[in-house]
């Protein structure tokens, strides 16, 4: 029985989860092995519902844990076909072992990560702890700021991951609840256009080609391990960003929507800038506009690609900025935040010598309010006016109790 296509409206009202489910349906995935966890559960529920109604031809395997979900995805991907799944938080943490295995085995799996805090204490709400946990795992990480992005980034993810020059798995991140459960208008692609963009899966080293038996997942010790890891890093550093840019360009042609490796808002003449990810980008953009009305030249830089880290693109975006705030939605637990460190790293050997402040915010789904951002921009401007750093390099913002700052 052939599967049925769906006539979508030009604009559908979808939350981020359902947008991801719909994109997965349109990509005609061969195997989804999945396990439910809040807040990503509706992705697999939505997908299961589509399967139950003959909208999906591929296999849908509900396994007994997230570790098994990614294990099944790895087996399926090595067999040779399009593979994806979804998870969050503790499930992501349980998957971590297999995340490294998937990337080291160069299997182009797409993982929708609906970002959520990590226990303890147990918390179901959105922060970026799981995203940060995955940042050394060898995956490509794309970041969606809203349901529209969550839909679009899935197509980009398959297109880039499955490219034979890349062959690396790819995560699509969206903020738990803030994106995953917030319904917004989503501009859609029709089924044929969407599938045409990602194209039919082209297998490589597939276990189901019995004329060419292949051994996957070998052992290498000190004689070869380093070379394999170096090659993987090389491909992440040199091949992936151009492929993402090319995919963005192609995607703009079919959708009219333009994405950039680094998203810049009001940055042409910005003196002060906030660098952040996820839903915070939209809040920061709104506040930057309001700060400009007050005469502060405020801008926003959003990361669209978290890994590989867009080192030169970030340096370029921030080269004229006098004071920068790096916003990390994950507790660094004993260090500067990830964004603070990465931004410092990409500016250190350049002529730019901006003042850099780190802000840890929004843990466990705590709101990042406009008031918080006004305070951040005001601090940045005060430093610019003083001509030196007058505020701590690391502050916790939005946390109860006495002001908490370090460094």
């Amino acid at each position, binding site marked *: 029985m052939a599967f049925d296509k769906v006539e979508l409206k030009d604009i559908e009202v979808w939350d981020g989860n359902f947008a991801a489910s719909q994109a997965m349906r349109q990509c005609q995935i*061969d*195997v989804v*092995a999945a396990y439910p966890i809040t807040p990503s559960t509706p992705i697999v529920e939505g997908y299961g519902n589509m399967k139950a109604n003959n909208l999906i*031809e*591929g*296999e849908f*395997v*509900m*396994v*007994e*844990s997230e*570790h*098994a979900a990614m*294990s*099944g*995805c*790895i*087996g*399926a*991907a*090595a*067999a*040779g*076909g399009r*593979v994806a799944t979804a998870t969050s938080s503790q499930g992501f943490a349980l998957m971590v*072992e*297999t995340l490294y*295995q998937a990337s080291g*085995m160069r299997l182009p799996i797409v993982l929708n990560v609906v970002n959520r805090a990590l226990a303890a204490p147990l918390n179901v709400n959105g922060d970026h702890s799981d995203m940060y946990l995955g940042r050394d795992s060898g995956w490509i990480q794309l970041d969606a700021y809203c349901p529209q992005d969550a839909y679009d980034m899935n197509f980009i993810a398959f297109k880039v991951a499955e490219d034979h020059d890349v062959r690396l798995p790819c995560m699509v991140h969206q903020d738990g609840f803030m994106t995953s459960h917030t319904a917004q208008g989503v501009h859609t692609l029709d089924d044929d256009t969407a599938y045409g963009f990602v194209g039919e899966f082209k*297998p490589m080293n*597939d*276990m*189901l*080609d*019995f*004329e060419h*038996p*292949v*051994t*996957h*997942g*070998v*052992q*290498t*010790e000190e004689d*070869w391990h380093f070379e*394999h890891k170096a090659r993987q890093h090389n491909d992440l550093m040199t091949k992936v960003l151009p492929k993402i840019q090319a995919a963005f360009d192609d995607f703009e042609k079919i959708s009219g929507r333009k994405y950039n490796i680094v998203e810049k808002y009001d940055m042409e003449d910005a003196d002060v800038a906030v660098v952040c990810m996820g839903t915070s980008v939209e809040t920061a953009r709104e506040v930057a506009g309001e700060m400009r009305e007050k005469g502060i030249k405020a801008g926003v830089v959003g990361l669209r690609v978290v890994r590989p880290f867009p080192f030169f693109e970030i340096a370029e975006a921030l080269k004229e900025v006098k004071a920068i705030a790096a916003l990390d939605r994950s507790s660094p637990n004993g260090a500067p935040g990830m964004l603070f460190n990465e931004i410092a790293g990409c500016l250190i050997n350049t002529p730019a010598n901006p003042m850099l402040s780190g802000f840890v915010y929004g843990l466990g789904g705590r709101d990042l309010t406009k008031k918080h951002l006004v305070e951040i921009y005001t601090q940045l401007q005060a430093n610019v006016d003083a001509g030196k750093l007058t505020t701590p390099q690391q502050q916790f913002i939005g946390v109860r109790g006495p002001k908490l700052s370090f460094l």
Partner: protein
Amino acid sequence: MSEMKKIKNLKEFSTSADRFEGANLLCPGCAHSIIVREVLNATNDDLVLAASTGCLEVCTAVYPYTSWDASWIHIGFENGSTAVAGAEAMYNALKTKGRLKQPERNPKFVAFGGDGASYDIGFQWISGCMERGHNMMYVVLDNEVYANTGGQRSSSTPIGSSTTTAPAGKVSYGERKNKKDMVSIMAAHQIPYSAQVAPNKWKDMVKKIQHGMAVEGPVFINAVSPCTTEWKFDPKDTMHITDLATDSLVFPLYEIIDNHELNITYRPKNVVPVEEYMAAQGRFKHLFKDEYKYLIKEWQERVDANWAYLQRREEARV
């Protein structure tokens, strides 16, 4: 359905369709390679194989070499079963979609794991695969110990065995718990076929593997795999030790069809005392001190009781 392979004699069997190379790093006298060759040679069909981390894996796929002339995957310690289940799901998807490169082939999906990977760390993954009904076979290479890492106890280690994490000592006789009954647990998943096999009884092995490959759905096989290194016997004695294992009924050979039809497939003409099986292995050496001899007696009683249970179950068809 593919045609079942006909096997005339051991010589032909041992050399036919050799998809597991003799060039591997397993210990001399290791039963793993014998079992794997017997499983693979039972069919001419294409194979999609997996191995969990363990002796078999580290000794057969060290880059840039491989001992496997068939599609093979290793992911981790606990998930060899799910690796093959994922591949089987992909096979079904591509079959439905008409995208198989060789649609006329009839591949079999087989995962191998040691008892540590199967009874312990991968237990949940195997249970999930059995419950979901993947068309696959899971084979435990049961040497009752974590051999790859130097002989630590697993939940398959039998009472009285001295291991590196439960060693015999001044106040210890070694392992204090009896091994998990994995075949019954797997049969209780209502799978169509589960069985215990041994490499010395190769005809019985082939029959069971072929039965398992012919049925639709998940199949569980527990293969006794005497370990020259950790059981402490001379490498030339592997088959002798295996004979003692099956003939003492410490490892009775039987099958369970649909969790109700139990068939004993080997009845030794002369049952060997358990003591003889134990005396042939260094891991039980300490039990022959006077103070622990009661454990040998208890072993014999347990084996007798289990044999009686299997016979009752065979007769009762429950």
